[in-house]
């Protein structure tokens, strides 16, 4: 697999299409699975992890899955970070030890981590609000894998996982939402409280414990035992449209009451991104968030939503260093980031002009 090529493309989940894609960036489901015959990863020896990796790879081959396997052990720190930024592997897999890796689908919407916290972490991710489709895909993938190996499963407790918080279905159903208006009016706190009462977790763009930079929020189930996969998907599918409505209302109120202020904020954000010569990662996320909302509200008309989505990921540290082709210190990264953003925005603007 050519990781350098990743910087010239982007995952399908970023293309900004699919239902409700002005607010729902992507829908994602992951399944935690373990082999019945081995200790869980944290207690397996390197020999056992090698064996687990061999079995999992052979299984994916036998199942005829079009996945490209990448051992994480052979990757340097920058490439590992690139895969984390890309949402293809977790931090845990990146920093873990012993034989481990990830199998990635051609459009980056499938990734199967091997020897993460569980032997297998299967993930499917699609653009927009499309949990039912994602479930169809991942359920089939899970069946195909299961045909060639024995999963650790117990009739009372379901799929057995290294952490009891995942036992049962082993499923994590999540959507990544862009909620700038709710964040701006502080109504987001109310949403969080309501979600916690419903047993749903809220995380930032890069998962547990990270700041919700760029007004991105991932909402997912916490319960995995006692409810079926379909019930858990339905629960989330019922809650998400309500949050989407709140966000739309907040945007309409904002635009109705303070249109000039909002337009000013969006235009200034766009202006800074188009002209800055050095910019930090967090300022970038903050400004891109305003620009993204501006495009969705029709306040900016010469920029594709896909470009904005990509910029959130391509301006992360490892992506920038890969694009630049050399390791960069923070100051150098800020300069490279500003340059990259200017170029991307200029080429998008030009394309828009040519279309007219």
């Amino acid at each position: 697999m050519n990781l350098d090529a990743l910087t010239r493309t982007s995952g399908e989940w970023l293309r900004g299409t699919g239902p409700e894609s002005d607010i729902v960036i992507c829908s994602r489901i992951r399944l935690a699975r373990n082999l019945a015959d081995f200790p869980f990863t944290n207690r397996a020896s390197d020999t056992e992890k090698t064996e687990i990796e061999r079995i999992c790879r052979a299984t994916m081959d036998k199942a005829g899955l079009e996945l490209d396997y990448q051992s994480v052990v052979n990757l340097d720190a920058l490439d590992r970070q690139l895969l984390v930024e890309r949402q293809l592997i977790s931090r845990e897999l990146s920093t873990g030890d012993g034989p481990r890796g990830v199998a990635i689908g051609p459009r980056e919407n499938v990734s199967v981590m091997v020897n993460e916290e569980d032997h297998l972490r299967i993930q499917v991710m699609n653009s927009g609000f499309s949990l039912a489709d994602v479930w169809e895909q991942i359920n089939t993938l899970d069946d195909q894998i299961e045909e060639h190996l024995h999963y650790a499963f117990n009739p009372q407790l379901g799929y057995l996982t290294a952490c009891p918080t995942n036992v049962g279905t082993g499923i994590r159903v999540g959507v990544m939402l862009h909620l700038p208006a709710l964040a701006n009016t502080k109504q987001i706190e109310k949403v969080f409280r309501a979600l916690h009462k419903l047993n749903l977790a809220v995380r930032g763009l890069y998962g547990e414990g990270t700041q919700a930079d760029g007004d991105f929020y991932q909402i997912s189930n916490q319960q995995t035992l006692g409810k079926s996969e379909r019930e858990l998907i339905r629960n989330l599918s019922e809650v998400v449209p309500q949050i989407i409505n709140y966000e739309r209302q907040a945007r309409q109120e904002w635009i109705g009451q303070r249109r000039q202020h909002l337009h000013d904020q969006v235009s200034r954000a766009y202006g800074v991104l188009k002209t800055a010569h050095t910019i930090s990662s967090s300022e970038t996320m903050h400004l891109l968030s305003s620009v993204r909302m501006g495009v969705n509200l029709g306040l900016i008309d010469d920029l594709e939503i896909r470009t904005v989505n990509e910029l959130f990921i391509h301006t992360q540290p490892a992506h920038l260093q890969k694009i630049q082709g050399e390791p960069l210190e923070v100051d150098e990264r800020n300069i490279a980031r500003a340059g990259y953003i200017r170029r991307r925005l200029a080429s998008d603007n030009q394309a828009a002009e040519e279309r007219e």
Partner: protein
Amino acid sequence: MTCQRCSREASVHLSETVDGQRRDLHLCGPCARKAGLTPPDPPPNAALEAIVDHLIVQHVGELVGELARTACPLCGLKFMDFRTGGRLGCPNDYEAFAPGLLPLLRAAHGASRHVGKIPRKRTPPSRSPRLRLRARLREAIAQEDYELAATIRDQLRQEDADR
């Protein structure tokens, strides 16, 4: 951190969860002893583990004390290690630690029975002969009984080939 009962430095830290509410207790040695939280005469240089076990038995009850020391026969993990590290060691732990795990599962998920997808192929993990063999293999290597280890390895390879 200072003792919650006087101004000395706290050396005993306990936390418990009752009805989902976490309570933390930080006490200095003398106050902890007054509250009955240390063994009456701690043996000099006693292993920390023994003191912890003693504290658990004294304050949470014999069952938990026993449970804390329970080890999975297949992977060797102790229930106590799971409580500290948060990760189980092998599929069999769900059976080995059932009395301690089920209340945790009920608290975390509000349920203790799986509803949902069932794999078409089923091997009850507690009876997984290969996991057993692997446990024996690890034990043989630990005891430097390489002859036995080689026999078990061959057996595992043979089964692999038979599949």
